[in-house]
């Protein structure tokens, strides 16, 4: 747990209960959690706080997740390299998710309804380990 103390995760998710539940679990696991309700706020927060990983929903008001990912990747070196996990209930080919992932590496895709909280946490750790 302690090794994750300073690891900052940004959750960008418009469904408040989902966002809160992921945040609670991640805090319990020792992460520092930031949250935004749409892509626009998420982008600002990401550029300001520079989290170690972004957990990103796709269908959101104001700015969707794929647009946020595109814009973040184009902003600066941090934005280009921060790992992003798209966490959505859309299927892989919807909204050209797979194309967006290939274009915006390091980016990954998980289906929310198929993954337990503990599995998501495990994936986050794997991605963070791959980054270092």
């Amino acid at each position, binding site marked *: 747990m302690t090794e994750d103390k300073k690891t900052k995760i940004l959750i960008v998710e418009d*469904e408040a*209960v*989902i966002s809160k*539940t*992921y945040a*609670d*679990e991640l805090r*319990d696991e020792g992460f520092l959690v930031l949250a935004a309700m749409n892509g626009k706020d998420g982008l600002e927060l990401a550029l300001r706080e520079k989290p170690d990983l972004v957990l990103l929903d796709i*269908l959101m008001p104001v700015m969707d997740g794929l647009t946020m990912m595109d814009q973040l990747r184009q902003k600066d070196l941090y934005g280009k390299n921060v790992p992003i996990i798209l966490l*959505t*209930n*859309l*299927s*892989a*080919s*919807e*909204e050209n998710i797979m194309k967006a992932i290939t274009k915006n590496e390091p980016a990954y895709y998980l*289906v*929310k*309804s*198929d993954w*337990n*909280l*503990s599995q998501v946490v495990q994936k986050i750790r794997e991605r963070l380990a791959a980054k270092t």
Partner: protein
Amino acid sequence: MTQFLEVKKSSDRKELEDSRNAILNVLEDLHTEKVQLAETKAKDEAILASIGDGMVATDTDGKIVLVNKMFEKMLGWKETEIRGKLLVEIVPMINESGKAIPEPERPINTILKEPAKATTTTTTTTTTTTTTTTTTYYKRKDGTLFPVVITTSPILAQNEFVGVVEVFRDITKEKEIDKVKSEFISLASHQLKTPPTIVKLLTERLLGGKMGTFTKKQKECFDDIRSSNERMIDIVNTLLSVSRIELGSFNIEVTKKDACAIVQSILGELKSVINKGQLKLQIIFGDKNIMVMLDEPFFRMVISNLITNAIHYTAKGGEIRVLCKTVNKGQVLGEKLLEEDCFVVVVSDTGCGIPQGDQSKIFTKFFRADNAREKHANGTGLGLYIVKSILDHSGGSIWFTSRERKGSVFYVTIPMTGMRVEAGTKELTT
């Protein structure tokens, strides 16, 4: 003598008259034929002009010899401007990524390259016909694009290859309808899955022990909520799969995969369920590293469904056998003669079997045999329907042999040439 001359004159006159009549008859016949030809020509032209699809005919060099009115209307070219020019130069073909399809890959050139294939009939009709299966676009004279389905065929006259005819249809409307269908499913998928996702996450938090401990009874309740919710997610996924099948909006995209490794990984995922049911598992891989062009998610769905069924319908202590191998064309598999080289997965069990009277219905949507209901009450009756639909759409096949109370054997074949790519709009699950 005078009498003789009279007779001669009379005979000459008759001959002349006969000749004149014959000539008149020939002229009349010629006129009739000319009129008929003109009528036929006018009729042919009217037919060509009335065809709702664009049509262009080329000679054996691919140069345009004829186009119909719809071609002119759809592409903005007049026949007089383009006659004698190469079709591939006049009408560029663009793929979905916006790139021009190279000339050798154009359907017309496939036929022009191998006209020998086109000389198998004795009439003026066509034989080898190619139809585009992925979305392609034609570029108009003004540079704008529109999506088309193109059917290209050789023209044979008296058994001789004389050119190519291409018929194309503007599918802009169909594309729009597909988009609406996909958006509906996409939205349904998202909206229907969000509430059970929330329940899933919250029950996991509650059961994780980080929010305090529960009594045994309370924990049992939360376990029941969790498993019912998982069923709800499965049902939503299954119903979405069925919707996609019925709306024809799913995509089969293939990549070269080690088919046995995928089957092995599915068995690994199901290991705990197999152990829980105290079932014996026998895995036989006839060959190793069988590389097949597969759409992995669809292939997984097919195999996973069949193995899960075997688990559900086999009593404790029973046996499940999974066999993977290649079978050559002409060999018999499960009482069926294979018409091409195939990768084969055979899933057999010693379970309850399918009653004879129900066997013709098991691939029907929502159908469940009575003994299946008894053994596994939670099934939806959609699994085998989805499996069959996937295989039907991808060039594979499935059949079975079964005896009640003895067990079932399901055979799945995928051609060694791979699953057939099908352009829909969406992935089948999730």
